[in-house]
């Protein structure tokens, strides 16, 4: 052991930037992690190709590409967020991770930062692929180039996807099991909206209040290009109940729970 013969080392705390680097690496360094993130680019390209091939000429505009790419993104990105948290428990890597860094809050924060970066970079990448598709598509079809997504609209869509990732992160810390959290995400984002849709169509009292109760419903305006003051308020209220509250409980549980 060289520590006893070499001059004493000064040990400094692990900086957050290093933790972010480590977590980013952990997102890519397994086959499953790599292909999950690679699938963002692959699916965006496939969706773009599909629009060029199958969409009616009159509808080949930037928005068509954006919505075609947006759907797979809205599913894959939250998975990235879920797995970054749950694999520590499902694969039991937490035994090492939380021993090397015995501050679970710091590790979670690094994971959240990585998820955010992956989200924004993926969206910008998707924008580029969609833009390229728009240029190529218009040229092939001989239609005019239509750039009908503004910077503001794009920013809102990015926000919408980041909220989706936050929901994944929330379910990850709350459930701490990969299959469980993934299933929960699909219930949360696909089954629940169907239930509330039916409820809204059959129960008038619910339809009146839906935007104040239903988080998925309140996110709708983000993908429609503009959000009114009232809609921001609805997003904030439903987000507090459906996202911030369970996220707080989940983080508390991660800090307290036993890593086995």
């Amino acid at each position: 052991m060289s520590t006893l013969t070499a001059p004493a080392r000064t040990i400094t705390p692990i900086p957050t930037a290093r933790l972010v680097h480590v977590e980013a690496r952990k997102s890519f360094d397994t086959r499953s992690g790599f292909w999950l993130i690679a699938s963002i680019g692959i699916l965006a390209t496939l969706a773009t190709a599909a629009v060029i091939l199958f969409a009616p000429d009159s509808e080949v505009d930037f928005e068509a590409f954006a919505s075609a790419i947006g759907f797979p993104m809205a599913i894959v990105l939250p998975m990235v967020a879920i797995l970054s948290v749950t694999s520590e428990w499902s694969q039991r890597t937490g035994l090492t991770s939380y021993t090397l860094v015995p501050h679970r809050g710091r590790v979670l924060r690094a994971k959240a930062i990585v998820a955010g970066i992956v989200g924004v970079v993926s969206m910008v990448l998707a924008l580029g692929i969609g833009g390229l598709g728009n240029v190529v598509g218009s040229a092939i079809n001989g239609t005019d180039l239509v750039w009908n997504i503004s910077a503001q609209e794009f920013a809102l869509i990015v926000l919408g996807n980041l909220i989706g990732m936050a929901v994944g992160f929330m379910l990850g810390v709350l459930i701490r099991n990969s299959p469980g959290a993934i299933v929960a995400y699909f219930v949360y984002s696909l089954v629940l909206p169907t239930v509330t849709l039916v409820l809204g169509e059959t129960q008038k009292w619910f339809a009146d209040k839906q935007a104040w109760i239903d988080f998925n419903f309140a996110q709708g305006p983000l993908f429609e290009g503009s959000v009114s003051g009232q809609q921001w308020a609805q997003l904030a209220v439903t987000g507090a109940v459906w996202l911030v509250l369970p996220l707080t409980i989940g983080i508390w549980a991660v800090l307290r729970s036993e890593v086995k």
Partner: protein
Amino acid sequence: MIQVENLTKKYGAFTAVDDVSFTARSGRVTGFLGPNGAGKSTTMRIMVGLTPTDSGTATIAGRSFADLPNPGLEVGVLLDASAQHAGRTGREILTVAALTMGLPKRRVDEMLDRVSLTPTEAGRRVRNYSLGMRQRLGIATALLGDPEVLILDEPANGLDPAGIRWMRDLLRGYADQGGTVLLSSHLLHEIEVIADDLVVIGQGRIVADGTKAELLASAGTLVRTRVVDDLATALTASGLNPVLSGATGGSDVLRVDADPEVVGKVAHEAGIPLVELRAADGAGLEEMFLELTSDTQREGNS
């Protein structure tokens, strides 16, 4: 140095760790011995902050684990060699750990070399590792930061005899240079050959604690005879307390808490022929350990 004071951990009505206190000193290998389910792993997880404790403290060189600024450089920990992402390569697992601790990449190669994992093996995914290879990788992770304290839970599990000897030499060398080594095992013989000090735990409580020499010395006499019942009667009549020695595996051996000379005299006076008479040399420890084990054995063949 590791200091554990009055640790208690309950799961509902079940007390997994019950007022556990002991010290693992520097320059020594401390064996943490107990049957499966005795509370060894829970105690070790509490030490490194993975399991919250109900009461008590565990400190490493005077500080709690959570207060260490970069724990990997001060405490090498191996709790479960199989707790790794099956899809990462051995090299990648070490690289991630080195990155976390802020160590240069060459340290990874040094450690792979030290635990005798070849570059080809290191490039394979852990999914394809044998338990022995996982243990070597886990030990490499623990040694990576060149720490002064090692906490290893069942590190010899899955190692072949050559591997166990290698680990024994490695830990011996570590302690000889002033390091603190705490390792657990459920096998007495495994720990007997490595440890300087022993801490024995059963059903969450410390049942014996001391240097190996002390614990092995206080063991009395073993006496073998064809007429066990007669000898037992004669010894009891002389105020001694003979017990059948389960540790030796025979039904013709008694263990007595007395010098061999005393036991020989009693047998001589009673005219009982002996087959064997000797100092027990740790048989007492082994018996105590067997008793602990039999309490938790499902077969109930105690």
